[in-house]
C-alpha cells in the first residue's frame, strides 16, 4: 500500500506542485521572521551585555517604567556627586564613577543631515576615563578632554563624512554645539549598535548639556577581586540608604533590559507570525482543494483498491501519507527560502542603517516551528479529503463517474448562519460596550468570525453571486461565457474554496483600507475644524528637540503664541494614568472643543482641565482638587477649572506645561503649535520660523495642509506595510486559482476535446478558462469587499471615540481591488488556459 501511495504521489507530482509551493511560502514567512527576530534579539543582547557594568545605580521613577536611556521627554532622574562619593567608599568597590546617557543627541553629517537611522536612539554620553568602567574602547584619535570636543562610535563615524580634527555640529537637548571631532571608539564587545548613534563628551560638558552640573544619570561600579557583584550591590544599597535608588548587578541589568527588549520583539514577532498564519490559512485552502480534486479524479482507482481488499483506513492513510510527503518537502524548501528571506530583510535593515551584527542563522527553533506549522497545516487541510477517500465504496469502481452535481449541505448552511448570527451578536455587543478597549477587541474578534462565517457560507454565497454576475460573462461570447459560468457552478464547493482563499486576503485589505481612509478623513476634518495653529514645528519621527527652539520662535515678529504639548505617565490615587501638559498660550488658541463648562483658555499654575468622561469616571467636578504623583517623586495638587468634550486632538487631564516642567517633565519639546497675530504677514513669518528651525536638521515647519499630508503619508506607509504583508496571502490565493483551474482542466480533458471537435477554436477554449478564472477571482473579491466593508464599518464605529469619527469607504480602492481581481484571474488562467487550448483533440476524446 505504501509503495502504491508513493507511486501515486510521484505520478501526480505535477498536480501537487502548487500546493507544495503554497506551503513553502507560508513556512518561509514563518521561519524567515523567526530567524530575523532571533538575529535582532542576539544583536541587541550583545549591545546590552556590551554596556553592562558590574554594578549600576540608577534612580527609580515614582511612576512608570524604569528606562535605561531617557527618551528625552522628562528631565533625567539624577544622582549627585555625593552619592558617587558614598559608593566609592563602599568596601569591594574597586572603581566607581558617575555616568550619563541620554537620548536626543544628534550628530550632523557633512551634508547637514542627521547621521544614523530614523528610529534607533541617538545617544549622548560622558567619556569615562577609567578603563575599568568604560565599556567603550578608543579606536582612533583621542578621547574628548575639553569643552566642545566629541568622540563618536566608529559605525557612525563611517557615515559622517567628517574626518578626525574637523568641526562637527551636535544637536543636544540644550541646543546645538559646534564641536571638534577628536576620536572614535568601539562600543562594547562587538561594536554593533543596531542603528543607534553615540556621541561622547568630556564629563563636565556632558553634565551641562545632558544633566546638571554635579549630577549624573547613573553610577557605574567595578567590583574588586574577591567580591561578588551581589555582595557589593547589597553593601551599596545599605550605604546609600535611599529606597528610590535601584542598585543592580550585571546579571540583573542584562536580564531586565533583555526582558524589555524581548517584550518589544515579541510584539513584532506576533504581528509577523499573524500575517504568516493568514498566509498559511490560505495555503490550507489550496491543499484542501488539491486533495479534494485529486480524490475526485482518482475515485475509480481508489474504489478499485477498496474492491481488491484495501481497508478504509489504508485508503485514508495513503492520502495522508501523500499529504505528509507534500508537507516534508515544503518544510525543507520553506526553511531554505525562509533563510534567504531573512538574509534579504537583514540586508534591507542594513540599508536603513540598522545592521544586525549578530548575523542570520538557521536556528533550531525556527526549523522546529517550520516543521510543526508546515506539517500540521498540510495534514489538517488533507484530513477531510482523506476521510472522504476512505468512504468511497468499492462498487464505485464499477460505476461511471460523471460530473457530479454536488449539493450544498443543509448542515453547512445552518452552521454558517449560526456563525453569522454569532458574528452579528458579537459586533453588536462590542459596539454597545462603553469601554473603548473591549469595544475594539470585540469588533476585531467579530471581524474574524465574519470571515469564518463567509468561508463556511461561501458555496451558497458563490452560487448567489455567480448567478447575479454570471450573465455579465456572456459579454465574452455567449457560449464561452455560459460554459465558464456553468463550469464554475458545477462544483460550488471547489469554486467557493478557491474564491474564499482570496476573500480572506482581500477582505483584510479592504477592512484595513476602510479604517485607514476613515482615519485620514477624520483627521482631516479634525484639523480643519478644531485645530487652530497656523504652523506646526516638529520632527518626522517625533524625536525630542531643545526648548530653545520654542523660545526663538516666540521672538519672531507676527507670532502670537508658541504652544507646546507634552505628557507622560503619572499616578492619581495610586492608579497609573497619562496626562497632557500644554503651555505657551491659551488652550482654545489651538484646540477647539465643545461642551465646555468652566474655562478652557489660559491655564494658570495649579489649574487643570479634564474631559467629561474622565471627570465623570473619577467623580470630579469644577473646583475639585486632584493630587498627581509624578515620576520624579514630586506630588502636586491641581484644581479643575474646566470640563470639555474630548476629540481626537485633545483628551484627558490637561495641566500647565510650566508646572509639568517644574516636576521634571518635558525637558524637551516634540512639537510646537504656532499661532499668528491678525496682522502678521504669513509668508514672512514662515520664512523667519524656518530660519530658526534650520539650526536643527530634524525640524520641519508644516502648515495645516502639509500637516494633513504628512499624517496621511504616515498612515499610508502603515497601510502599504500591511498591504505588503497581506500580499503573500493574496499571492497564495491566486496560486489557488491557478491550481484549481489546472486540475479541472486535467479533469475535463475529454470535454475540452469534444468542444474542440465540434468547432471551438483554441482562442475560445482559452477565453473559457480565463473567464472561469476571472469569475472565481471576482467572486473572491466581491465577498472580500463585502466582508472588508462590513468589518471596516464596524471597526470605524468602534473607534469613533478614539478619533476615527468619519466613515470613509474608498470607492476608488474598491474598484482597484476588483480590477486587481480581474488581473489575478487573467494571470492565473494563463498557464491552464494555454494547456487546455493545446490539448490534442484525438487524445482527449479517445476513451480511456
Amino acid at each position: 500500500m505504501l509503495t502504491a501511495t508513493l507511486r501515486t504521489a510521484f505520478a501526480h507530482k505535477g498536480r501537487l506542485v502548487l500546493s507544495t509551493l503554497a506551503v513553502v511560502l507560508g513556512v518561509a514567512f514563518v521561519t524567515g521572521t523567526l530567524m530575523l527576530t532571533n538575529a535582532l534579539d542576539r544583536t541587541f543582547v550583545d549591545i546590552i551585555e556590551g554596556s553592562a557594568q558590574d554594578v549600576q545605580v540608577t534612580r527609580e521613577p515614582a511612576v512608570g517604567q524604569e528606562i535605561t536611556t531617557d527618551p528625552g521627554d522628562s528631565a533625567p532622574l539624577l544622582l549627585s556627586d555625593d552619592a558617587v562619593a558614598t559608593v566609592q567608599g563602599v568596601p569591594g568597590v574597586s572603581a566607581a564613577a558617575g555616568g550619563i546617557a541620554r537620548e536626543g543627541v544628534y550628530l550632523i553629517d557633512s551634508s547637514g543631515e542627521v547621521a544614523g537611522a530614523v528610529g534607533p536612539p541617538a545617544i549622548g554620553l560622558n567619556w569615562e576615563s577609567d578603563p575599568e568602567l568604560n565599556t567603550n574602547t578608543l579606536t582612533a584619535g583621542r578621547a574628548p578632554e575639553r569643552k566642545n570636543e566629541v568622540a563618536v562610535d566608529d559605525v557612525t563615524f563611517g557615515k559622517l563624512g567628517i574626518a578626525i580634527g574637523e568641526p562637527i555640529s551636535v544637536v543636544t537637548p540644550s541646543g546645538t554645539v559646534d564641536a571638534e571631532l577628536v576620536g572614535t571608539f568601539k562600543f562594547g564587545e562587538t561594536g554593533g549598535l543596531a542603528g543607534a548613534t553615540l556621541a561622547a563628551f568630556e564629563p563636565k560638558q556632558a553634565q551641562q548639556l545632558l544633566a546638571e552640573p554635579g549630577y549624573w544619570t547613573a553610577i557605574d561600579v567595578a567590583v574588586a577581586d574577591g567580591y561578588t557583584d551581589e555582595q557589593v550591590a547589597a553593601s551599596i544599597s545599605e550605604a546609600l540608604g535611599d529606597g528610590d535608588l535601584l542598585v543592580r548587578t550585571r546579571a540583573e541589568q542584562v536580564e531586565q533590559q533583555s526582558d524589555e527588549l524581548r517584550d518589544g520583539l515579541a510584539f513584532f514577532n506576533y504581528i509577523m507570525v499573524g500575517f504568516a498564519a493568514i498566509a498559511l490559512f490560505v495555503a490550507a485552502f489550496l491543499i484542501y482543494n488539491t486533495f479534494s480534486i485529486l480524490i475526485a479524479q482518482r475515485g475509480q482507482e481508489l474504489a478499485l483498491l477498496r474492491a481488491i481488499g484495501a481497508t478504509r483506513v489504508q485508503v485514508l492513510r495513503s492520502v495522508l501519507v501523500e499529504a505528509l510527503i507534500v508537507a516534508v518537502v515544503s518544510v525543507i524548501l520553506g526553511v531554505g527560502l525562509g533563510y534567504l528571506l531573512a538574509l534579504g530583510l537583514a540586508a534591507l535593515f542594513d540599508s536603513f542603517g540598522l545592521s544586525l551584527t549578530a548575523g542570520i542563522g538557521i536556528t533550531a527553533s525556527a526549523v522546529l516551528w517550520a516543521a510543526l506549522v508546515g506539517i500540521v497545516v498540510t495534514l489538517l487541510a488533507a484530513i477531510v479529503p482523506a476521510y472522504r477517500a476512505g468512504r468511497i465504496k468499492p462498487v464505485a469502481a464499477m460505476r461511471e463517474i460523471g460530473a457530479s452535481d454536488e449539493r450544498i449541505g443543509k448542515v453547512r448552511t445552518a452552521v454558517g448562519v449560526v456563525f453569522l448570527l454569532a458574528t452579528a451578536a458579537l459586533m453588536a455587543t462590542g459596539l454597545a460596550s462603553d469601554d473603548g478597549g473591549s469595544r475594539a477587541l470585540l469588533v476585531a474578534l467579530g471581524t474574524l468570525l465574519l470571515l469564518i462565517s463567509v468561508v463556511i457560507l461561501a458555496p451558497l454565497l458563490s452560487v448567489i453571486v455567480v448567478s447575479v454576475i454570471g450573465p455579465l460573462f456572456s459579454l465574452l461570447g455567449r457560449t464561452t461565457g455560459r460554459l465558464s459560468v456553468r463550469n464554475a457552478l458545477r462544483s460550488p464547493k471547489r469554486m467557493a474554496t478557491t474564491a474564499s482563499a482570496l476573500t480572506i486576503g482581500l477582505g483584510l485589505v479592504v477592512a484595513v483600507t476602510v479604517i485607514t481612509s476613515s482615519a485620514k478623513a477624520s483627521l482631516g476634518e479634525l484639523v480643519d475644524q478644531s485645530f487652530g495653529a497656523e504652523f506646526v514645528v516638529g520632527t518626522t519621527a517625533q524625536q525630542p528637540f531643545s526648548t530653545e527652539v520654542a523660545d526663538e520662535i516666540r521672538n519672531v515678529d507676527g507670532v502670537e503664541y508658541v504652544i507646546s504639548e507634552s505628557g507622560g505617565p503619572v499616578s492619581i490615587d495610586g492608579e497609573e494614568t497619562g496626562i497632557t501638559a500644554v503651555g505657551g498660550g491659551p488652550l482654545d488658541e489651538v484646540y477647539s472643543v465643545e461642551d465646555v463648562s468652566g474655562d478652557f483658555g489660559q491655564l494658570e499654575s495649579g489649574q487643570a482641565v479634564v474631559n467629561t468622561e474622565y471627570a465623570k469616571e473619577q467623580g470630579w467636578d469644577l473646583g475639585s482638587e486632584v493630587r498627581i504623583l509624578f515620576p520624579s517623586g514630586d506630588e502636586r495638587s491641581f484644581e479643575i477649572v474646566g470640563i470639555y468634550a474630548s476629540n481626537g486632538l485633545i483628551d484627558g487631564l490637561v495641566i500647565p506645561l510650566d508646572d509639568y516642567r517644574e516636576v521634571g517633565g518635558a525637558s524637551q519639546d516634540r512639537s510646537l503649535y504656532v499661532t499668528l497675530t491678525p496682522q502678521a504677514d504669513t509668508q514672512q513669518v514662515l520664512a523667519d520660523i524656518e530660519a530658526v528651525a534650520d539650526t536643527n536638521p530634524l525640524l520641519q515647519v508644516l502648515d495645516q495642509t502639509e500637516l494633513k499630508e504628512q499624517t496621511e503619508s504616515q498612515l499610508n506607509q502603515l497601510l502599504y506595510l500591511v498591504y505588503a504583508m497581506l500580499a503573500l496571502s493574496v499571492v497564495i490565493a491566486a496560486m489557488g486559482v491557478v491550481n484549481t483551474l489546472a486540475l479541472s482542466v486535467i479533469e475535463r480533458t475529454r470535454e475540452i476535446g469534444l468542444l474542440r471537435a465540434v468547432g471551438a477554436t483554441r482562442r475560445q477554449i482559452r477565453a473559457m478558462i480565463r473567464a472561469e478564472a476571472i469569475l472565481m477571482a471576482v467572486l473572491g473579491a466581491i465577498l472580500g469587499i463585502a466582508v472588508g466593508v462590513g468589518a471596516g464599518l464596524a471597526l470605524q464605529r468602534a473607534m469613533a471615540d478614539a478619533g476615527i469619527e468619519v466613515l470613509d469607504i474608498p470607492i476608488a480602492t474598491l474598484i482597484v481591488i476588483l480590477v486587481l481581481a480581474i488581473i489575478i484571474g487573467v494571470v492565473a488562467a494563463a498557464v491552464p488556459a494555454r494547456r487546455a487550448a493545446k490539448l490534442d483533440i484525438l487524445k482527449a476524446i479517445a476513451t480511456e
Partner: protein
Amino acid sequence: MTEPASRARQLTKTYGSGDTQVVALDSVDVDINTGEFTAVMGPSGSGKSTLMHCLAGLDSITKGEVYLGDTALAGLNDTALTKLRRERVGFVFQAFNLIPTLTARENITLPQDIAGHKVDVDWLNQVIAILDLESRLSHKPTELSGGQQQRVAVARAMAARPTVIFADEPTGNLDSRSGAELLGFLRRSVDENGQTIVMVTHDPAAASYADRILFLADGRIVDEMREPTPDKVLNRMVAFERLPQQGE
C-alpha cells in the same frame, strides 16, 4: 452524379517512426458520395477510426490528399480546420458526446453558439422532432438515457446541416432496441433530407442500414458492398475468414 461530399486520394497515415512505426492507413482512395449512408467495417485496428478522423479534419495526414467537398484539408491551419469542422462536419462518437454542464438543447446548438451563428429554428425543431427529443430538451446529459444521449449527439451533428456526419460506433454502447432506433433516425435523415453520413460499426445489422459498406483491413480498403443486408454482410465477413472481435 454530383461531386463526392468527401474524398481521399492516396491517403496514408503512419504513427511513430522507425521500428515502432504503425501504418494505420495505407494509400487509401475513397469517395464518400453525397446523400449516401456509408458504413465502414473491418477488424479492430484496421484503421476505421483513423480514416474517419482524417476525413473529418480531426487528425493530420502523413501523405496524400483529403477533400471535404472541394476544400483540400491539407493546407488548412488549426483555426481554419476548426471553422470547417463546426460549419461543415458533424460528429457522433461512441461515448461522451455531450458537455455535462449544458442542457440537451444547448448541446444541440453548441456548434452554432460557438460560431456565433444564428440557429435555424425551423430546421432545429424538425431535427428535434425527427429524433423525438422534444420532451428532453431542458435536461442535463446525466438525466438522459444512453440512447437519448446519442440522439442528442445526432441532433447536434445534424443541426448545422453539415456536408458530412461522421459517426464512430454510435450504437456501440446501446442496447439493440435503442441502437435500432438511432440507426432508423440516421437512415431517415439520409432519405428525407439528403444528409451524407459515414458510420463506423462492427455490427452487421447496423451496417445493413447503410447504402454502401467499405471493408477495411490493415489500413486498406479491401472490398465494398452495395445494398447490404445483415446476412450478406455476415457472409462477406465469413468469407474474409476473419470475424471481427466485438466491442472495445
